[in-house]
């Protein structure tokens, strides 16, 4: 995967050369799977990114995101007609849901096999408000900063994590979708089932809130050091 670096800048995010979602009916019939395969390949880097982000931290040693995405393709292929007929959401959003479902199923299977994982309990983790928070924490924890930046990064990570954790679920989710899953505003709107404007406003508001908390955080640690 490292030989397939994901460059959202050129491909999806700013440049509106983002591929236009295909007509759902194109997936019907015998040519359907082929068409799906093409689209799926286009989405694959993003999907792997999303899976890596959403994966339960305790699973990282056992599951590889690319395997999860690959596995999900088979499920998706079997259901593509369903999408073609109903197409409740745009293709990418639909595929993302299926992939995440596959991820959950795989994690569950592993749960069952390996008695140690999630067999008994969950600890009162102040940061485990919801899975998003978990994922963010895990991603932040697992990042590899460049050696020169270690010190700064470590502090920034901690601050960011704290700030995100202290936000409410919706705000955190919106930021996660945009910055960790690298989704576009349109996709966020589709996933949340709201209008483009509402999604956009929500995002800006969440970002403003985050900034406010981050400012406080650095301020608070100053106060604390002064004491």
């Amino acid at each position, binding site marked *: 995967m490292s030989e397939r670096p994901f460059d959202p800048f050129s491909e999806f995010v700013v440049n509106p050369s983002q591929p236009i979602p295909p007509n759902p009916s194109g997936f019907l019939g015998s040519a359907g799977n082929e068409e799906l395969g093409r689209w799926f390949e286009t989405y694959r880097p993003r999907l792997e990114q999303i899976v890596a982000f959403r994966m339960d931290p305790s699973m990282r040693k056992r599951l590889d995101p690319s395997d999860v995405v690959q596995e999900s393709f088979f499920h998706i292929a079997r259901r593509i007609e369903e999408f073609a007929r109903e197409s409740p959401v745009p293709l990418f959003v639909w595929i993302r849901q299926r992939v995440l479902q596959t991820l959950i199923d795989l994690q569950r299977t592993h749960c069952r096999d390996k008695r140690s994982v999630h067999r008994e309990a969950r600890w009162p983790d102040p940061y485990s408000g*919801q899975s998003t928070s978990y994922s963010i924490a895990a991603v932040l924890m697992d990042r590899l900063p460049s050696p020169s930046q270690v010190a700064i990064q470590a502090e920034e990570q901690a601050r960011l994590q704290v700030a995100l954790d202290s936000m409410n679920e919706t705000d955190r989710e919106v930021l996660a979708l945009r910055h960790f899953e690298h989704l576009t505003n349109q996709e966020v709107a589709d996933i949340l089932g709201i209008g483009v404007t509402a999604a956009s406003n929500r995002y800006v*508001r969440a970002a403003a809130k985050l*900034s406010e908390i981050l400012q406080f955080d650095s301020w608070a640690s100053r106060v604390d050091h002064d004491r």
Partner: protein
Amino acid sequence: MIDDAAGIDDAAEGRHPVDALAEEFSARVRNGEDPDVEEYALRAPEHADLIRTILPSLAMIERMAVQDSASPSRRLLHTEPAPPSSFDDFEIVRRIGAGGMGIVYEAVQRSLQRHVALKVMNDASSEHSKSRLRFQREAEAAAGLHHTNIVPIYGIGEDHGRQYYAMQLIDGVTLHDIIETLASTQDLEQIVAPKSNALSNATVHGFGSSTARQVASAGSPARFQPRDAARRLLNRTPIDDALTGIPSSEEPIEFEVASRSGTAIEAPPVQEVDGRSRSAFQPPRAYYRNIARIVANAANALHYAHHCGVLHRDIKPANLLLDRDGTIWIADFGLAQRSDFEGATQTGELLGTLRYMAPEQIRGGGDRRMDIYSLGLTLYELLTLEMGLRSPKARLLDPMGHSTVRFSKAMQRVIPRDLQTIVLKACALAPEHRYQRANELEDDLRRYLEDRPISARRAGPVERVARWSRRNPILATLSGTSFVLLATIALLLGVWNRQQQHALERIQTEYDRAEGNLNEKTVALQLAEREQTRAQRNMDMALEAFAQITSNIAARGGLLRNSIDLEDAEWTDFADASLTQADVELLQMLQQFFTKFAEENSTDLRVEAAVARRRVGEIQHRIGKLEEASDSLDKAIGEFQSIRSIGGPSQRVLLEEILACQEAIEVFAKRGQMAKAMSLFQRAKRLFESQLEFQSSEDGKYAMAQLIGCMVSNNLRFNNDRRRRPAMGWLGRGNLPSQPPLPANQRARLQREDDLNAEALTLLADLVSAHPNTLAYRVSLASAHKEQVRLSRAQNDWNRADQSLTVAADIMENLVREHPKTAPYKYQLAEILAIPVARRNIDAQRCARGLVLCNEILQEHPLVPEYLALKASILTRQAMLFGSILNAPNGDRGDAGVQHFLEAIAIQRDLVNRYPEVAVYSIVLLQYHVQLSELYFATKRPEKSREIIAEALAIAEQMKGRGLAQPFVKAILDRIRERRANLETKADG
């Protein structure tokens, strides 16, 4: 700046203009560039501030997220060095979570082969030897805690240079998770009815359910999810009774998609980002009860820990776990330490915790009451799903200024008032205003669960006013202060007398509106003038509140007066017997109001001030401070006289003076000073007769009729009291209504009173014919006839008693017919019908009608204590009538009688439980017991009879223990014992 961000549309794209810039900026950072924020600020100068605020944060996120995330194999854990695979006896299985102070692992204790949770402290936390020592000491203390609701600590230790402690692994979810889950769910049905939801989801998410089914059918229990826990809380099954977890087959696996991938498709996005516009959380009733239960259990645990000298210091939803069985567990006891905050700040523990800290704790102090505060806040969040306190920054700067919890209007409407009050008390700003011990909080929650009145009072009104005045010195003028007091009163009335809540809310609304109008219209008015108007309005509102309270009390007092056997008892011994605790407090507050009013307005609003003085006396009278009441009333009467002598007698002053006299007569009568009462009565009567205009006026006539009624009934009662010993049923005295012949002087006295009452009847009859639409006159006329019933009974004139009762009942019957929806009319009618006067079969018919009426009003108002009490009283009347008809009751009728008594006792016992402080209810309950024991005896069931007497004794002892109506209870106890002795002798003979 947040406001700045809201609702700005870029018309072209429909996106927020800053969104597009932020997106571009983020993408560049992601691409390795270091774009200049100012460049973006220039591109959209109208949003420059917002841009400068958010872009640096976004850059921070991107720098974090941009690394090669997709290759797990190459990850290095920098902030968290790979943990050793074991600590001493504990072998790490997996990481469960991380907090500011350490990381929590699931581990296996090798020696005992048990799974435990292992909290390993960060290096940083272990650095300072001081904090280390403290950690050790606290952890040891916490390890000594053994309580069903505290996560047990198995042991503490140090290995690899890091401290750790091992504790029981709980199969549960945190309240934090539950709150988040509930808060992010738009439709509670999704949680409550998982099956239908799973179905609808299946169509969307479709595949994958087969895997889920495999998991389920394989029988491995699914993880206990916040959603399951939330469902448990919403479920009607009381959480205490739940013994098993939710079957895994019910688990809607598909939910995970929704919760993991964002709100997904089914969630309508009503929720505003800041949560403010979300409609209030409206769970089923059961939720509140479940919440109250688990928080009560947590409070119990807290109390236990406090008792053992261990403070928690970090109570918050994330530290409370709910397990599958519905048991609540408090985790991390005694482990949060102030000395760790420095370390914690960096990793953010402080932030998470700050939100739940008591203000004094933020300042660095605090005792057990800080834990109570934090638990109160936790309860708040469970009730509202919103943060009790926002802005942690502001809290740190000014803890006292930002630690007040509020319920929004919408919340107030849905959340049980008692729970609101409990939260407000637990989270009071000053520790001394909170529950002083955690078990007091628990007790109040249990009282709520048992539908008993809670001990917490909404605000300490006096203190609140005082504090408020200190904060607002300029506003705290007469009207300001008065208004706060009144608002508090209205609030209290709302809390305690649900019946009147609406009425008072109306008053409040009216008041607010009038206040608004006044402010608008009277800018031109002189300040003094405005103040005066306002003061007068405050007075009106206070009077209305007072009327509400007294009507309640009067109803309870009337019950006692009407109670057949107790009519003769020395009930005047305890003037306050019919007051609830709430009444007393309200009355005391009103007294304050009136006193203050009287003092502050003695020159400007002289009449009002005198009226206020009269009210003070009235209240003192109600709460049993007879001497002080006499005093206040005396002052009021004097003031009225002096006003009259200066400005001449206005109708209003005359009216008020007569009312004051009436009250004073009552008080004299209660103190046994009948001569004084009589002379005051004569004086008032002369005054009335000397003022021709007033005498012929509507108000005058009415006031005089009331005055006479008051004198007559007091005189009657007073003399009865002296004449007879309280009778307690058939064994104590012959069957009612046989009476000894009256001595001559008594007859003469009763004749005088008869004449007086005739006067009152004439006045009222005049009023009714002149003003047929004024219902109050008709009610009063009925009352006067009722008084006549009593007078005639006292004179052993049973025919006349029967006639008067028929008239009184007819008047009320008409009112009931005309106003079938007005419960008080039915109540009064039923009350009249229950007085025994005639042949038993007629009485029985009247009782039956009374019972029907009672049932009707109870159908509308099932909880009003007065109505319940009347029903119980009528039931026993009927039972006694059954008994009397056969003289020696047996067979069916005896059984019916027993049934009636049992029902009455059940109702009455319920009332006693709800209002343990109202002596009247307990006394009447005693009376029913005694009567039932006699009925048992008469139907040849001496065993039962003894049982019931024993029960009665227990109740009386209880009352004695609570210090209720002491002298009276003592007398009753003696009489019950005497009765028991009688019973034994008769049983033997």
